[in-house]
């Protein structure tokens, strides 16, 4: 009796410490066998499917599943996970009578209920996005044209990608339109671009390459277009500068005041790399040299300078609005030439989408490809 009490206390203390009840040993190290036909509900023995049974019970009792699925197990979502689970069970319990069949049955049941894998989402599944992107890329081309291109593009199996929200329009733009960039860089960019392209991006790329839209709907075709251009000598190889550009900082002239001026000034002054002079207490603009036809040098001003992962060192110019008058066109041409002289790419930053389209249209008309446009909200 004392031993029983003592065993009970010991067992309880083990349970307290480990959360497990110790196996009863009756003081001897007897191994307890597991009987698969043991009814866990009442502890009574049951009959195996082929074993003897009392009279009047000719048919074997309905099979009870040997499985108690642990709810803590992570849900299996792939056939590979399921196969691994089955192999593990067969290894551990496959030698027990009836277990291989039960495992196989459960395996089939699980397999039937595996979640259907998400089909690769077609980037061209959204015709609206495609048409919108096309409009941004093609600028003045009628958007109706995009519908035909959409049909063309959707027939190509190469146009299915994930990572749809990466916004690769800019990359595609760089890959296809930056014809003053070495061909190998364009090719790398094109590869990177199409790997993350969305419907809108495809539309953009297709619209941007107005020369031969059909060529741009597959990655291979983009590569073909680029390599053809290289062979034809259309891509002018430039030396990509390794260090930062040679920049001169010049004081900015204050313009007239007013609410819009304040907003515009704040927008321009917040360009990356913008600064002001402590001495003159004026904003300073970074400027790079432009070589004139007679060999003399003149400075061309921007609003900021930055290092861009795609274009390297860039010169930034912020535009509060786009006014397509002669002075802006002249400025764009001056900047483009100075950028070309310094092997740099320029970026116009505008506050809204409509202004981005206006700026893109202007640069397109002027044949300028080394100035890009992007939206930066104020």
């Amino acid at each position, binding site marked *: 009796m004392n031993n029983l009490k003592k065993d009970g206390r010991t067992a309880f203390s083990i349970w307290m410490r480990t959360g497990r009840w110790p196996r009863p040993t009756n003081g001897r190290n007897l191994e307890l066998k597991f009987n698969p036909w043991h009814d866990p509900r009442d502890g009574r023995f049951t009959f195996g499917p082929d074993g003897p049974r009392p009279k009047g019970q000719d048919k074997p009792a309905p099979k009870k599943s040997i499985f108690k699925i642990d709810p803590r197990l992570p849900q299996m979502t792939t056939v590979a996970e399921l196969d691994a689970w089955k192999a593990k069970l067969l290894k551990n319990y496959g030698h027990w009578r009836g277990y291989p069949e039960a495992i196989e049955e459960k395996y089939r049941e699980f397999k039937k209920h595996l979640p259907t894998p998400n089909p690769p989402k077609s980037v061209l599944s959204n015709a609206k996005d495609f048409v919108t992107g096309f409009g941004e890329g093609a600028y003045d081309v009628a958007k109706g044209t995009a519908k035909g291109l959409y049909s063309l593009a959707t027939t190509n199996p190469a146009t299915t990608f994930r990572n749809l929200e990466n916004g690769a329009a800019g990359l595609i733009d760089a890959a296809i339109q930056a014809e003053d960039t070495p061909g190998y860089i364009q090719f790398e960019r094109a590869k990177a671009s199409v790997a993350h392209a969305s419907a809108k991006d495809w539309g953009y790329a297709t619209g941007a390459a107005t020369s031969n839209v059909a060529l741009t709907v597959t990655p291979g075709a983009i590569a073909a277009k680029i390599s053809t251009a290289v062979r034809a000598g259309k891509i002018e190889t430039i030396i990509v500068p390794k260090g930062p550009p040679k920049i001169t900082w010049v004081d900015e*002239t204050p*313009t007239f005041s007013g609410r819009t001026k304040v907003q515009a000034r704040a927008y*321009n002054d917040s360009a990356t790399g913008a600064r002001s002079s402590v001495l003159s207490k004026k904003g300073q603009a970074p400027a790079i040299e432009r070589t004139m036809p007679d060999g003399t040098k003149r400075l061309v001003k921007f609003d900021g300078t930055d290092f861009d992962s795609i274009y390297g060192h860039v010169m930034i110019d912020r535009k509060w609005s786009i006014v*397509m*008058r002669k002075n802006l066109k002249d400025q764009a041409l001056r900047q483009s030439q100075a950028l070309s002289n310094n092997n740099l790419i320029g970026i116009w930053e505008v506050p809204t989408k409509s202004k981005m389209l206006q700026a893109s249209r202007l640069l397109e008309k002027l044949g300028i490809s080394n100035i890009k446009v992007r939206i930066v909200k104020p």
Partner: protein
Amino acid sequence: MMIDQIARILANLTLALEYSGENIDSDDIVRIQEIMGADMQALDQESRRILSDAFRRIAPEYDGDFRESVASMPEDFGLEDEDLD
């Protein structure tokens, strides 16, 4: 009409800036026109249409290149662009 007079003031200012030669820095002219453009684009759609019509009405008052320059102001200053933003 008052709106025609406002259009004349804007047109004359724009032309004066553009034909100022070397007296005014060209980048500064771009800045000034950016602000003018932003102010004009900030008008509601109906006001933009009225101002556009006024520029076209007064354009014949100007000679030579100036006439075309004034007539193109509605488009150049973005008065006729759709509201995309």
